[in-house]
């Protein structure tokens, strides 16, 4: 990739993220119809895109992990790590916004009946363990390999956990609850899509930012090594 495009990609991405975020906030608060839940429902426009973005980060991290193991891509380990790092941050945000949503919707700060939240908790736990694994190993090919394998386990865990949690609800909460999946009107859908795009671009910006910073660290270290 040419230096020009590399140097300019980050600011371009950041600008795009800013524009989209502003647009989505505008849409959320001024355009999308307010339904009976009121302002609380607006949380939904944050919570779900954030959750979506977190999944995207974990997925991307898993993809980079696969590239590392399979094709031995240079730097794939770092990219995988940064993606998962970001995914965990978005995961925390998901849990927080989800909790706020639950508070307004059901009056509790946490509800086990909401599959999405439970799934996130499990995944969050899983990826925190990813960091514990990384911290317990010295930097090197072994750490990269083990992290990659564990990241792939995480990706495989997602569908299985979805299934497991759904099944577990049957014997933990046999009372049928209102799933409340959004049936969205056109304007809501548009707002939702813009919000998703905004979150993804914000994530992409942060990803590239963190990656650039980490790569710089690596380069500095290499230069120091070479000068020794």
């Amino acid at each position, binding site marked *: 990739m040419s230096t020009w495009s590399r140097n300019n990609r980050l600011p371009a991405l950041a600008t795009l993220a800013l524009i989209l975020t502003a647009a989505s906030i505008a849409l959320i608060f001024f355009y999308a119809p307010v339904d009976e839940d009121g302002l609380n429902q607006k949380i939904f426009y944050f919570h779900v895109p954030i959750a979506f973005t977190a999944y995207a980060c974990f997925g991307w991290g898993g993809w980079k992990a696969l590239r590392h*193991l399979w094709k031995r891509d240079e730097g794939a380990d770092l990219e995988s790590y940064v993606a998962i790092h970001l995914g965990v941050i978005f995961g925390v945000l998901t849990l927080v916004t989800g909790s706020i949503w639950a508070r307004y919707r059901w009056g509790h700060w946490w509800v086990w009946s909401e599959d999405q939240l439970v799934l996130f908790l*499990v*995944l969050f*736990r*899983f990826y925190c*363990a990813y960091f*514990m*694994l990384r911290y*317990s*190993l010295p930097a*090197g*090919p*072994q750490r990269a*390999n*083990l992290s*990659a*394998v*564990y990241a*792939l*386990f995480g990706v*495989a*865990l997602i569908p*299985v*956990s979805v*299934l*497991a*949690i759904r*099944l*577990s609800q*049957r*014997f933990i909460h046999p009372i049928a609850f209102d799933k409340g999946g959004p049936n969205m009107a056109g304007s809501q859908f548009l707002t939702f899509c813009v919000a998703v795009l905004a979150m993804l671009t914000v994530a992409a910006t942060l990803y590239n930012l963190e990656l650039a910073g980490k790569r710089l660290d690596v380069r500095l270290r290499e230069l120091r090594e070479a000068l020794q």
Partner: protein
Amino acid sequence: MNYLADVGALARKDLLLELRARDTLPAMLLFVVSTLVVFHFVLPTGSSDLAATGLLWVALLFTALLGLSRSFAAEREQGVIDGLVLAPSDRSAIWLGKALSILAFLVLAEVLALPAYGLFFRPVDAALVAGVALADVGIAAVGTLLAAMATAGRARELLLPLLFLPLAIPIVVGGVGASVAEDPGRYLGLLGLYDALFAIICWASFEYVVTE
């Protein structure tokens, strides 16, 4: 064919080691029975069947962790893992051999635990046994690979439970569900899916866990 011979040789080695050392299996047996006794005091009267079954699975899970944390002890303490990795055999055979021996230990622990559970709490039915059997496969497969990972780093005794517990959640759901739901089929299906999916992933990725 060579592959199976390798796996057999390695599994035999692990069983032989345990026979000589006699530390892991007795600890597991003692642990599981003690835990069940503790649970008797933990459950207030009128607790549901679900609570008791749930506790059984907690006991099994932690007994498994106990066994798993010792599983690579010999290789780690004496550096023998290098010797095994250098051999021309497929590295996944190391995983499979070790997983089979862990499976054997788990089954032996359950041969003691399930009757004890039946005695202390509630009778054991076929669905529970099937659930335990399927869960054992998953625990052995995933646990062995994670034990190898944990061995590589510092704080290995702490790391293994941290790595393992999130992955154990589908197993627990499947196992408990199979024991208490009217329709155990779905849960056994979940366990089967988990076993198949993760066994394949472990088998394919163990190579990367032990090499650079």
